[in-house]
């Protein structure tokens, strides 16, 4: 599964995108964020306040409880500030 990061989430994680293998038990976006947060200090920093990190599944905004099975691309990013 491809994971992408944007803005300060990207800066903190230190990469723009990566491929990861989902371990068993990681079923939702919230599970995935918690799993990533345990991968190192950079990830822990990026996900230190999971309430402010937003996510998209296959380029569509999704809530933390959304299931991720079958997704090709998941992205994490701060609240949007375009316009």
């Amino acid at each position, binding site marked *: 599964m491809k994971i*992408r990061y*944007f*803005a*300060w989430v990207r800066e903190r994680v230190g990469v723009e995108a990566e491929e990861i293998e989902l371990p068993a038990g990681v079923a939702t976006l919230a599970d995935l964020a918690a799993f990533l947060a345990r991968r190192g200090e950079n990830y822990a920093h990026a996900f230190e306040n999971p309430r402010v990190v937003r996510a*998209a599944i296959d*380029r*569509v*905004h999704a809530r933390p409880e959304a299931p991720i099975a079958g997704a090709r691309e998941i*992205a994490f*990013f*701060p*609240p*949007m*500030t*375009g*316009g």
Partner: protein
Amino acid sequence: MFTVRIQSAPFDAACEAAALSDGRQDVGALVTFTGLCRADDAAPEAGGRLVALTLEHYPGMAEEEIARHVEEARRRWPLMGATVIHRHGRIVPGEPIVLVVTASAHRGAAFAAAEFLMDWLKTSAPFWKQEEREAATGWVDAKAADDDAAGRWDPLP
């Protein structure tokens, strides 16, 4: 004509607006919104004068997310055309960032659709602004006021 474009180059608002009405006789109302980068003088301890904004975006999703809201606007109002252009990259004060043009037979629909699109662009289009100030660089925080503005549009059944 319904168009969504994400680009780093500046846009010509006039030309884009004209494209929705030229040669037609059914458009009675054309609303053009241009959002520009404002110079803003923060206190020195907050970084000082704004030098530039750099807009990062999620390629692919940005177009798709905006196109979804253009479709939603078409479900809500009888539009004859809409154009949304959002720039990315480095933008200095005085330069345009975003353009929304809506065309309809009547002004109510054109105004409402333009405001609807702008409210949703602010809160759901995957763009992030980084401020480059004289003495600091940092990411712009999302504004609660923008969430409130987007929240005023009740979902359609």
